[in-house]
C-alpha cells in the first residue's frame, strides 16, 4: 500500500503502477508457484495486498482520469445461496488476482439473481460459483437459468466448482467450465477468455 501510495504521489501513471509494479511482482510469484518454489499461501499473501492497493488506491485514480483499468479479464466470484463455505472460492479469487484478473468477490450465500446483477453491472467476462454441499450444488443450475432468463448467457462464461461438483454436472447444467482445483480453475478461466 505504502509503495503504491508513493508511486502515485510521484505522478506515475496508475496503469503503469499496475503493469510495471504490481502485475510484474505477481507474475514472479506466480512463476515460482508453478515451479513449486512457493506455495499457495505465498500466492494469497501476495494477491491480497495487491488487490487492496488496486481497488483502494489505483482504481479511484484511474476513474478520476476517466480511464479504464486493463486486466486479464473481469471475473465475478461467489458461493451459492444456501452455502457459506467460502474458502475454496477465496483461494480461486486470490489465484486469479495473481494471474492478473480483476476479481469481484460477491461473498457467500449469494442468490442466482445476484450473480446476474453483478455481472451486468461490472460487465464481467466470467462468472464463477462455488458450492460445497451436495444440497446446494443444484443452485449452480439456477445460475445458468438466471443468465438465460436475463438474455446474458452468451455474454459471460459460467464456471463452477466445489467438492460435489464434477465435469459431467457442469455439462449437464449447461455451464462453460469446471475445475477440480484452484490451480486448474485459473487455467480453465484463462482458456475461456482466450489467454493461453
Amino acid at each position: 500500500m505504502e509503495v503504491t501510495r508513493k508511486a502515485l504521489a510521484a505522478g506515475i501513471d496508475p496503469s503503469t503502477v499496475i503493469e510495471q509494479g504490481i502485475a510484474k511482482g505477481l507474475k514472479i510469484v506466480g512463476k515460482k508457484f508453478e515451479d513449486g518454489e512457493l506455495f499457495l499461501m505465498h500466492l494469497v499473501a501476495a494477491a491480497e495486498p495487491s488487490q487492496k492497493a488496486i481497488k483502494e488506491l489505483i482504481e479511484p485514480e484511474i476513474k478520476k482520469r476517466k480511464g479504464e483499468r486493463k486486466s486479464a479479464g473481469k471475473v465475478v466470484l461467489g458461493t451459492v445461496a444456501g452455502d457459506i463455505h467460502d474458502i475454496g472460492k477465496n483461494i480461486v479469487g486470490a489465484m486469479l488476482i495473481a494471474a492478473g484478473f480483476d476479481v469481484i468477490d460477491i461473498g457467500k450465500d449469494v442468490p442466482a439473481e445476484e450473480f446476474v446483477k453483478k455481472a451486468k453491472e461490472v460487465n464481467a467476462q466470467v462468472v464463477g460459483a462455488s458450492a460445497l454441499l451436495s444440497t446446494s450444488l443444484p443452485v449452480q443450475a439456477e445460475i445458468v437459468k438466471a443468465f438465460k432468463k436475463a438474455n446474458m448467457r452468451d455474454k459471460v462464461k459460467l464456471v463452477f466448482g466445489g467438492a460435489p461438483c464434477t465435469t459431467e454436472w457442469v455439462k449437464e447444467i449447461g455451464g462453460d467450465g469446471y475445475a477440480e482445483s484452484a490451480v486448474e480453475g485459473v487455467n480453465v478461466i484463462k482458456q475461456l477468455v482466450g489467454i493461453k
Partner: protein
Amino acid sequence: MMVGRSTKGISLNIVSKEDAGSIHVAALEILEKTGMDCTPKIAEVFRKAGADIENNGKRAKIPQHLVEEALRKAPKTILFGGRNPKNDVVLEDGRIYFGMGGTPTPYIRDLQTGEFRRPGKQDMVECTRLGDGLPNIKFLMTLAGAFDVPYEVEYLHEFEVLFNNTEKPILFSVPGGDASRRVLEMASTIVGGMDALRKRPIFGLYSETMSPLSFTEANENMMEFSKARVPIALGPMPMTGSTAPVTVAGCSLIGTSENLAAITLVQLVNPGAPVIYAGWGTHMDPVTTRCAYGAPEFTLGTDAVNAAMAHYYGLPCYGFGGCSDSKFPDAQAGAEVMMNAMVAALSGVNLIHDCGYLAGGSVGSMEMAVVANEIAGMVLRIARGVEVNDETLAVDTIHEVGPGGHFLSHKHTLKWVRDAFMPQLFDRTSEVTWAKAGRKQIYEVARERAKKILKEHTPEPLPKDVQQKISNIVKEAEKELVKT
C-alpha cells in the same frame, strides 16, 4: 446377547498427556475469548446458559466452566448398535472399529469398467451390501451418494438405503432440524419407538461444524439428536494453512475448540446425551490446494492428536483410516491406507472411517474397501500385540523338542497356529504359483472379491411393512420439500 468389545489399540502415544493438557487449555481460551459463530437457535442455547452473545447475536463467547461441565456430563462409554444386535459394539477406552466410507463421494470407481462416474441410489445399495459383507468393517457410511434423486431429499433416500441394506451400525449425516426429525422417525419405526431407539441406538449422526469456529444451520441437527439421545459423532474439518493455522497443532486446536463447543451445545440441550469426540485437524496440500487424506499430517491431526485429546477427556472418539489421495487402488493407496489405519488404531481411535476413499474423498472404490478390509485385519493383529506368558513362551515345549527337532506337529503348535493373521486377500504364494494363476494384481483380486460378496451376501431385509413405512416417510418428505 453379548455386545462386541474389540481389541484396544492404545499404545503409540505420539502426543503426550502433557501436550493434550496444553491443547485443552488453549481451546478453552479460544472459546471464551474469541468464541464461535452461531445460528440464532444455537446462540440462544448458549445465551440461556450464561454465555455472552456478541456481533448482533451471532457470536457466542463460551465460558470455561460451561465447557468443563459439559465434558463431565458426556458419557464415557457408548453403545453403538446395529439393526441386528449381534453387530452391536461398545465405544470406549481405545477399542477400535473400522468403518466403510464416509459422506457421499461425488464419484464412484465403477466396479466393471474402472471408470469414474457419478453415482446413484443403486450404487449406494451395492456399497452398503458390500460393507455389510466385509468382516473387518464394523460400521457403515458410504462410498457413493444417491445423486439421482431430488437433492432436497437426498439424505433421506440415503438413509433409506442404509437402513435397508445393512444390519451393522450406521454413521451418517443429515443436515438441519427438519430432516433430522424425519430420519429419527425412520429409525424409530425400525426399532419400535423412540424409547427403544434411545436404549439401543441403531445409528449415529455425523455432524461437521464449519471451520474456523462456526456453527451452521446444518448443525441444528445436533439439537434434535441430543433430545433423542441418539449418538452424535462430531467432525470439524479445519485445513492447515487455509481454515486453520498451518501447523498440525494449531490446526488441531481449531478442531478441538469446535468440538468442545459442540459437546457443550449437545450437553446443554440434553445433559448426558451421547457424543463421540472428533477434534480433527486436516491437511491442505499447499500446491494442489486439495485436502490431502493420505498426508502424514492429516493422520497426525485427525488421529494422533484427536485420540490423545479424547483419551484426555475420557470420551469415545472418531477418526480416519483406510483413505488415500491416489486415484487408483495401487501402491500409493496401499501405503497411505496402511499408514493412517495403523496410526488411528495404535492411537486408540474408536471409530476409524473412510475405508475405500480414493482421490482425497472424491472417489469411492469398492475394490479399495476390500483392500482396506484386509489391511484392517493386519492392523488389528498388530494392535493386539505380543502376548508373553508361560503358555506363549512354551518353555516346556522347547525342552521337549530339543535341538534338531521340529515343532510342526506338536500339540502346542496345533493349538496356537490359528492365532496368526491369515490373509483373506493378499497373496503370499510363490512367484511360480502367482504367474500360473494369471499374474493378477491385488486390485483385480479385490474386484473379483467385491463382485463375489455382492452376489452371495444378502443382509437380512427389513420386514415388508417396515420397508413400506420408511419408504412412505421419504415419499411424504418428497411431496412437502421438492420444488418442481
